[in-house]
């Protein structure tokens, strides 16, 4: 997909307008937040479970190379073929090359954020192969040529009227309807044919179990099970950090992942592949390829200050609770990943220079970190990225801060260590700031902070700041 992370401000402004007109951006993340909160207490001790999951994910990051080798060994012993890809090009070349070699015309895809990151669908299309997204939300987004609006519910912002029009046009729907159930049924009928006839399935991976060489998928619709069961070739694409040490760990993590994502005790389907089908099986893939993708992650891994971002399990709890996401929705982030998890990951994948707004458009409220089952401290990461951006970091490609900002902070830095300079600065600034004050308020000011005053006032700067009142206060004994 086209990366538009540098257009954050324009996209955000457009989306805020839409959000006022379309109340479901207010409703759906709130709804998902509520069902998560309702589901967490079905664990005996939710905070303990969160801490445990975070520790497992931290352990995975620490042990990553060993776990990957163990996973590869066991997956290969199961009969799977493990392919390593340094970047999107290597991954796409392999997958598309395999498809061409096998005469594949149609590919069915289970939901995979990694395949979005790779731009795999475009690579297929460029080679005359038809990829079909089969997750309902991804299918709608694909047919409407839109990026995902949310990592779990990619088309939740699309109105039923738009879905109807899309399905009439592209999914063979004959009778117009705006009933979501009937729309869903139309998609079922249309995609069922693809499930039946596609020669290749591509799925993502939620969990790669090192101990057994197993790849696990979590879903509610059944399209991933179809993608893994009906075609003769299956490609499972995983980013390297998806490992979990043991099958017992996987069960424990599934309980935490699914509740954080949708509040369910378990999703409708959890399916686990350990190698291709056995000789005497009637369905399932003859060949299973597991593609392990780097695409910038081994680079992230070098920096101990930021590599906790690799703990993410893609539950979207952070997305649903984020007050900024709730104002702007997924498109403004300009890439496959949105919300706090996107704001922490994409700067490291694409460069701090191309994603300046992603790690700045945050109030540091910490709601995300408070719900993250992987123990990621998103605000701390944003502060780290901003510091890198100011200091320069060749590993993550920093840009240059605007001269005005750098100078302002330099001056501020001089004043802050000397109360004399500080007070002088305040004394000089006061008449300028209070110039147009009325009724004790200021409603406008030129300069970079002037945007504050579009919809808000500030109190005028006190004629007597507290420090000038202290002598009197000190004298007034209780």
């Amino acid at each position, binding site marked *: 997909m086209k990366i538009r992370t540098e257009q954050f*401000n324009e996209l*955000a402004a457009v989306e*805020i307008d839409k*959000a*006022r007109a379309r109340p479901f951006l207010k409703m759906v993340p709130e709804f998902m937040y509520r069902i998560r909160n309702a589901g967490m207490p079905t664990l005996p001790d939710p905070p303990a479970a969160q801490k445990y999951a975070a520790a497992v994910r931290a352990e995975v990051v620490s042990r990553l190379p060993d776990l990957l080798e163990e996973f590869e060994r066991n997956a290969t012993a199961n009969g799977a073929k493990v392919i390593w890809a340094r970047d999107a090009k290597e991954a796409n070349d392999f997958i598309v090359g395999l498809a061409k070699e096998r005469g594949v015309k149609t590919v069915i895809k289970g939901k995979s954020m990694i395949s979005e990151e790779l731009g795999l669908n475009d690579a297929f299309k460029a080679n005359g192969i038809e990829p079909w997204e089969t997750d309902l939300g991804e299918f709608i987004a694909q047919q409407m040529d839109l990026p995902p609006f949310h990592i779990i519910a990619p088309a939740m912002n699309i109105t039923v009227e738009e879905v109807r029009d899309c399905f009439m046009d592209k999914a063979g729907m004959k009778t117009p309807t705006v009933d979501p159930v009937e729309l869903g049924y139309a998609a079922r009928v249309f995609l069922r044919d693809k499930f039946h006839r596609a020669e290749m399935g591509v799925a993502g991976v939620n969990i790669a179990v090192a101990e057994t060489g197993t790849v696990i998928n979590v879903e509610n619709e059944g399209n991933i099970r179809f993608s893994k069961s009906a075609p003769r070739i299956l490609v499972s694409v995983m980013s390297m950090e998806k490992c979990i040490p043991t099958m017992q760990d996987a069960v424990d993590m599934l309980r935490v992942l699914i509740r954080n994502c949708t509040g369910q005790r378990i999703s409708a389907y959890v399916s686990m592949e350990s190698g291709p089908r056995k000789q005497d099986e009637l369905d399932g893939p003859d060949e299973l390829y597991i593609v392990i993708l780097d695409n910038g992650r081994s680079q992230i891994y070098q920096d101990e200050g930021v590599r906790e971002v690799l703990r993410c399990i893609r539950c979207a709890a952070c997305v649903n609770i984020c*007050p*900024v996401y709730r*104002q*702007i929705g997924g498109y403004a982030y300009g890439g496959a990943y949105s919300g706090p998890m996107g704001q922490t990951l994409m700067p490291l994948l694409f460069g701090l220079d191309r994603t300046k*707004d992603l790690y*700045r*458009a*945050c*109030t*540091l*409220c*910490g*709601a995300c970190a*408070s719900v993250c089952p992987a123990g990621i401290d998103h605000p701390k990461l944003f*502060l780290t990225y*901003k*510091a*890198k951006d*100011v*200091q320069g970091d060749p590993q993550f490609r920093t840009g240059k*801060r605007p001269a005005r*900002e750098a100078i302002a*902070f330099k001056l*501020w*830095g*001089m*004043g*802050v*260590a*000397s*109360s004399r300079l*500080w007070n002088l600065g*305040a004394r000089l600034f006061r008449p300028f700031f209070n110039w147009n004050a009325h009724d004790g*308020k200021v*409603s406008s000011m030129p300069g*970079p*902070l002037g*945007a*504050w005053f*579009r*919809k*808000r*006032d*500030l*109190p005028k*700067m*006190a004629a*007597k*700041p*507290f*420090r000038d009142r*202290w002598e009197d*206060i*000190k004298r007034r004994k*209780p």
Partner: protein
Amino acid sequence: MHDVSLFVPCAVDLFLPEIAESTVTLLRRAGVDPVYHKGQTCCGQPAFNNGYRKEAKRAAKHFIELFGDDEVVMSPSGSCACTIKFHYPELFQDEPEWFRRATELAARVYELTQYLVDVLKVDDFGAAFDGRVTFHESCHNLRKLGISAQPRKLIAGVKGAELVPMNQEEFCCGFGGTFAASYADISESMAQDKVENYLASGADVLLLSEPGCLLNIGGYLSRAHPHKKAMHLANFLTENMKEARS
């Protein structure tokens, strides 16, 4: 009795000095006569939050020099307290002596409501208010310092005041320091949501204990709903106390 040193946020000193005055009144009412270091400037939060760590360090060293010997450092702002407690040690990872001093100081820094209720064990200042109030949970207080019960206890100590719930009271108001101007579209939208929730609560006044939130929510109210009030809890208590003057 501890030697309590007032840490007055720069925004309070310059824009909202009455919050600091109320803080002194409350402390004296609780039996503590605070000291105030006139040399204080700014804790450095804006610089730190924008990635200017070199400049933030200058602020931090100045602060530690000034406050380093105080038994208790107390601020009517949770976000400023957090800067000392969490960010100063981070700043000095590569300077062991400053790191030691920062870590030691961090343990002695308190937010106002936390200090009044948990340490001084006072939650009733003889205030009375005939009306409904609601409370905005500021992000740093709630999530970084675990402070929520304390301001609520102080509100409960106000005779006659009815605390009504507000929808999404723990949601960020959209201030975020320079965020409010740099991402004004988003910030305004968040402030608007907060204000709509406040109006829907039926409360006569919105209380909060973070000056930044007050500037933001108060600033939005001033423009859009000038007859509706938001107040710092310290001001609310002192304005409604029987003998208000300290």
